[in-house]
């Protein structure tokens, strides 16, 4: 179409003459300048105003620009590489308009690695630290009274039930519970029911198997060790850190089979071990003869013909062995006096010295 306009301008006078004089101006135009129908139509519809030369220049430049663009577009359509280049250019423009230096383009979310805050500290700081006395009954009901007391209210137990043991602790402490099956369960001091009620059965808080009973309850202290022993007389040393469990199932520590039961879990307070059997034989040996394990059957502590283990105590050789009888009197024997009873572990032992409690326990 623009070609037509340009031809019109070039031969303006002739075009005017044709339009003025000829009957069928359109056909004459087509014939005279070899125009197409569309071009001729466009020329005839042209305004007189557009006769100004300025328009011609504008038309020329427009024509040039469009021809350029057409060839550019055709090249683009032909070459895939050029298409990608065009896309890249547009992406570049978009990047400029929404770049990191603009208000809307600036990155708002920053990154950071995982923070290294001690989670245990966080957990304990969530609990208010208060002293409590944990009371465990014979039938397995547990509660925690505020404050450290030694007086307990008999009415706090169900009929037929009575106190088994009580422990002073803090709400932030963890309490470890040993069952006859050799499993150790963990209870949080803050999770125990209040002291005014009769408590809750421990079996609701942790999974203790059928037929198993509770043996002992104590406060967890990191770094401390204990001697765990079965009634049959097998045992070993275990670190309290190994006993902590996060689940209700607890941790199997002492492997017992058949009618065997875990009986004792005593803190290590020295380098000597004293054991007394149900047959009232006392044996003393060094704790280094016991292995330190996380889990297992253990080694034989004392040999018995009949019966099993009654009690176990650890003491420092320098301090000597002490025990209290039923009337509250304290006896103590230094290592020199204990010579008769010191032997290898797994031997039978001898009758205990005079004054030893009748009930074969180190605490009368």
């Amino acid at each position: 179409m623009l070609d037509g306009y340009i031809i019109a301008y070039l031969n303006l006078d002739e075009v005017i003459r044709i339009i003025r004089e000829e009957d069928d101006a359109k056909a004459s135009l087509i014939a005279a300048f070899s125009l197409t129908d569309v071009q001729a139509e466009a020329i005839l519809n042209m305004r007189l105003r557009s006769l100004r030369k300025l328009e011609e220049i504008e038309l020329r430049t427009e024509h040039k620009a469009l021809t350029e663009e057409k060839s550019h577009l055709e090249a683009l359509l032909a070459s895939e590489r050029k298409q990608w280049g065009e896309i890249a250019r547009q992406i570049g423009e978009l990047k400029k308009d929404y770049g990191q230096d603009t208000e809307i383009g600036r990155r708002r979310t920053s990154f950071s690695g995982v923070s290294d805050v001690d989670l245990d500290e966080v957990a304990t700081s969530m609990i208010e630290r208060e002293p409590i006395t944990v009371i465990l009954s014979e039938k397995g009901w547990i509660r925690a009274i505020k404050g450290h007391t030694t007086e307990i209210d008999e009415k706090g137990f169900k009929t037929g039930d009575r106190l088994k043991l009580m422990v002073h602790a803090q709400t932030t402490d963890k309490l470890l519970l040993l069952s006859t099956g050799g499993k150790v369960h963990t209870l949080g001091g803050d999770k125990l029911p209040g002291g005014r009620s009769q408590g809750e059965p421990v079996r609701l808080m942790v999974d203790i198997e059928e037929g198993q009973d509770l043996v002992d309850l104590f406060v967890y202290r990191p770094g401390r060790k204990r001697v765990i022993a079965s009634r049959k007389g097998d045992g070993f040393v275990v670190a309290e850190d190994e006993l902590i469990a996060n689940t209700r199932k607890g941790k199997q520590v002492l492997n017992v089979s058949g009618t065997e039961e875990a009986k004792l879990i005593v803190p290590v307070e020295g380098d000597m071990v004293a054991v007394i059997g149900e047959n009232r034989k006392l044996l003393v040996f060094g704790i280094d003869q016991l292995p330190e394990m996380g889990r297992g059957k253990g080694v034989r502590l004392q040999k018995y013909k009949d019966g099993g283990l009654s009690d176990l105590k650890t003491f420092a050789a320098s301090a000597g062995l002490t025990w209290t009888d039923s009337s509250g009197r304290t006896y103590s024997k230094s290592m020199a006096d204990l010579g008769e009873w010191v032997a290898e572990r797994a031997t039978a032992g001898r009758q205990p010295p005079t004054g030893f409690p009748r009930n074969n326990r180190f605490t009368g």
Partner: protein
Amino acid sequence: MSDDDIPSPEDGAERIVDLRQALEERYLSYALSTITQRALPDARDGLKPVHRRIIHAMRLLRLGPNEAFKKSAKVVGDVIGSFHPHGDQSIYDAMVRLAQDFAMRYPLVDGQGNFGNIDGDGAAAYRYTEARMTDVAMRLLEGITENAVDFKPTYDGSNDEPVVLPGNFPNLLANGSQGIAVGMATSVPPHNVAEICEAALHLIMNPSATVAELMQFIPGPDFPTGGILVEPQASILSAYETGRGSFRLRSRWVREDKGRGVYQIVVTEIPYGVQKSKLVEKIAELLLAKKLPLLKDIRDESADDIRLVIEPRAGTVDPAILMEQLFKLTDLEQRIPLNMNVLDRGTIPRVMSLRRRSSPGSSTARTCWSGAPTTGWAKSPDGSKCSTATSSPISTSTR
């Protein structure tokens, strides 16, 4: 009700229909319709059908960013009448979300009036508010008049609507999308456009670039509400590679000393998708239930900015531990899921990795490329109907 009361079908056409089969058929077609026509965005322009129709309607109303605002009711009415035969409130809610600068990283709608706020207050009714498009929405529409995309008839056949928007803007990755269909869902977080552009340019130069390489340009999502992403690099990488994962997003906080050893913590940015008022309520509840022993008080001092003041019980409390507690128990730390499940080519839902999402070019759109569109070409006598338009450089690819 006896047999005589039941009307028999016309023409005596009776069928025994198995209930189970009938239920299956009908539920399947409902499920398919939610997947393809409702909840999942198109991978090419990142829009769900309702949003696309809103933008198309706004274009027909000539609501460009420099034009005057028009009543939202007008937009909603046009969308309902011509394009989207569903509820008016849902359409308006969708439009409101497009206008919120705390919900959209690059808002598509410029709203005038009450369009809701980060406290969870809703927008005003659509008879009160006014709206127009933003520059971003205009970029999405670029080239639509030059026959860049296919049009299909609307639900009643009286109009045409675009199948997908041509889009000179990587909307799917930039603004993200969340949706729940039947049997599948999608969650794409928003990202930073400048970074996406750099990654796209890199991908053009190196078509076989790996996701790890692309992550040099796109380190992770960029939320409109800011925050801090605490996720190890490796886990972000694996999320982008498989298209599924999650990010832990934390609030931004600073410690303000008040002198004499006393300090307070000020939270300036909260995680994406969290309502500030509910957050403060929940923290206050926990405080009253004595679950936060290190905390003394929480105050909301926000005005135009976000400012939550947290007072520790004593100046000796370690702020890091106090914040760890709060992050664990409240929405000050939020998990943002990633599930890049989008409609491939507008029809097939597929979980895509970052690479597929950002690679430019679509084989179907390759027939239309150009630079500046011109109207003169439609009447070009030389017959070459070279449809000129720009096509989305950021869309799915066949690579």
